[in-house]
């Protein structure tokens, strides 16, 4: 069986030639939660956007390929690629306010996609959306469906977005720091909801986070990203038992109680960063030779 998502050797550059992704490879198996962990600016969001086909126009993919359930995204014509991504993936975004259209009610925003993209009947879509709202523990679906986004709390909006992401039964969900913008008290509930729905629906998730505590709780596999480069990919249990890369060790050392949820990261060891910088410079050098 082919992997749900297979990224091989993906490099992307900015308009000025600076690399933002450095030969990234990672594999997400069906039904698996794969954490993508790294500091802010490491390129986690960029990888998610590359997979979903919404990279900013200033970013260009220069090598590598991405396969979604065995289909090579780079080889598909744009229209077919859009259809495939639309049918098989979904995003749980970082900021639940800007991810909902402020001038449309929640109901049509949620059902529209099922009706227009997947061709469901309005009735079927409505039933499905209500079922999902129930799964994310929204007890007054009638009110929520009639609301405008600004009439709901941040936690409620994120529940709506989680329900919307799972509603179309995607094979892969990209969750980009889905709890970062929320109150600490709500973060734990939202994380639990995502984990519960993931188990229930068997959806693979590429889970972007900067928090090792979250990684430990939710994922089976983890890729550690630094400056657009995957420095370590491992089973989550193995990573915490025996981190191989000095950067990973340093991250964990900087988070003494990493198994405690939501502990924040402290600055990473200077010598490790110096080592990383050298490693990346060498890799860039080697990469530039064939790529001019």
């Amino acid at each position, binding site marked *: 069986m082919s992997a749900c998502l297979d990224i091989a050797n993906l490099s992307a550059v900015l308009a000025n030639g600076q690399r933002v992704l450095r030969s990234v490879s990672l594999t997400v198996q069906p039904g698996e939660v794969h954490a993508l962990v790294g500091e802010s600016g490491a390129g986690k969001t960029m990888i998610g956007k590359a997979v979903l*086909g919404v990279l900013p126009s200033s970013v260009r993919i220069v090598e590598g390929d991405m396969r979604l359930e065995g289909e090579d995204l780079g080889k598909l014509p744009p229209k077919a690629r*859009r259809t495939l991504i639309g*049918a098989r993936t979904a995003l749980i975004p970082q900021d639940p306010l800007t991810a909902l259209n*402020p001038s*449309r009610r929640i109901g049509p925003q949620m059902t*529209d996609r099922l009706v227009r*993209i997947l061709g469901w009947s309005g009735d079927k879509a409505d039933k499905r959306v209500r079922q999902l709202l129930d799964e994310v523990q929204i007890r007054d679906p009638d009110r929520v469906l009639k609301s405008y986004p600004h009439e709901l709390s941040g936690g409620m909006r994120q529940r709506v977005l989680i329900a919307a992401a799972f509603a179309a039964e995607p094979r892969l969900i990209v969750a980009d720091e889905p709890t970062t913008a929320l109150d600490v008290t709500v973060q734990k509930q939202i994380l639990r909801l995502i984990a519960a729905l993931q188990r229930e629906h068997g959806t693979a998730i590429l889970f972007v986070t900067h928090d090792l505590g979250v990684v430990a709780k939710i994922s089976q596999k983890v890729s550690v990203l630094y400056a657009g480069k995957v420095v370590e990919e491992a089973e989550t249990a193995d990573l915490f038992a025996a981190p191989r890369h000095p950067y990973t060790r340093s991250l964990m050392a900087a988070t003494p109680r990493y198994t405690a949820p939501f502990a924040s990261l402290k600055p990473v060891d200077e010598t490790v960063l110096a080592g990383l910088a050298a490693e990346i410079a060498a890799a860039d050098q080697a990469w530039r030779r064939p790529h001019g």
Partner: protein
Amino acid sequence: MDEARIIRRRLSPRLWLAGGWLLLALLAAIFAPLVAPQDPLAQDLMLERLPPFWLDGAEPGYWLGTDSLGRDLLSRLIFGGRIAFIVAFAAAIAACVVGSTLGLIAGYFGGWADRIISRIVDIWMAFPPVLFAILLVAVLGTGLSSVILAIAIIDWTRFCRVIRAEAMGQSRMDYVENARIAGYGRIGIMLREVLPNVVPSIVALLSLEMGIAVIVEAILSFVNLSISTDDPTWGGIIAEGRLSIHQAWWVLVFPLITLILTVLSFSQFGEALKTRFDPVLR
């Protein structure tokens, strides 16, 4: 939340004042033959320069007095409203449709579409609008439709610039990206996701533009470039009033007040409507 909303709704006198004046003026214009006390074109040299009703020498039935040809000022203002409103609605809607469409396309699609449209707007706006209007009417010929056309041709840029900027901001929002991921086409996203968010601005601009169209029409009438000179227009009455300001100030003052009230009401009404159309502000 609901309470605050009710209070805000009650506290919106500008909507009611502005809307009330516009409604009054519009109804008077529509039913001008029924409500105007006199024939606006009837001259009577026995009645020339009658003062308004509260001054000595006023005649009953000539509430705001008469002009130097003895025509009833109130009736002329009411009939002049017809042309003012026709021009306001037709020109503003035409400018709005053209400008908003191009602005939406430029702002949402960006790239070369934006570069072309923005360049045209820049060139357009380099012309001083009033001179541009006079020039256009001189070329198109006088008459109602050329006045409307001239105003639309000049003022679509006003819509284009604002709507472009707003659409550009909207298209960077995450929900647009989400719609891309879901697989919507570009035009579908522009119409379903972006357009509803710029509608409040379109409404406000549309109302403002109606006021501007009234002024431009008045200016064109004032310089005798608008409709045939027989039909009363606000600008035409002001032009005549200017000549007899020392003998009959009311012939100048009342049309000016009418014009200013109408233009202010359009802009205030638009602002108030904008908040009504905005789900966040509402």
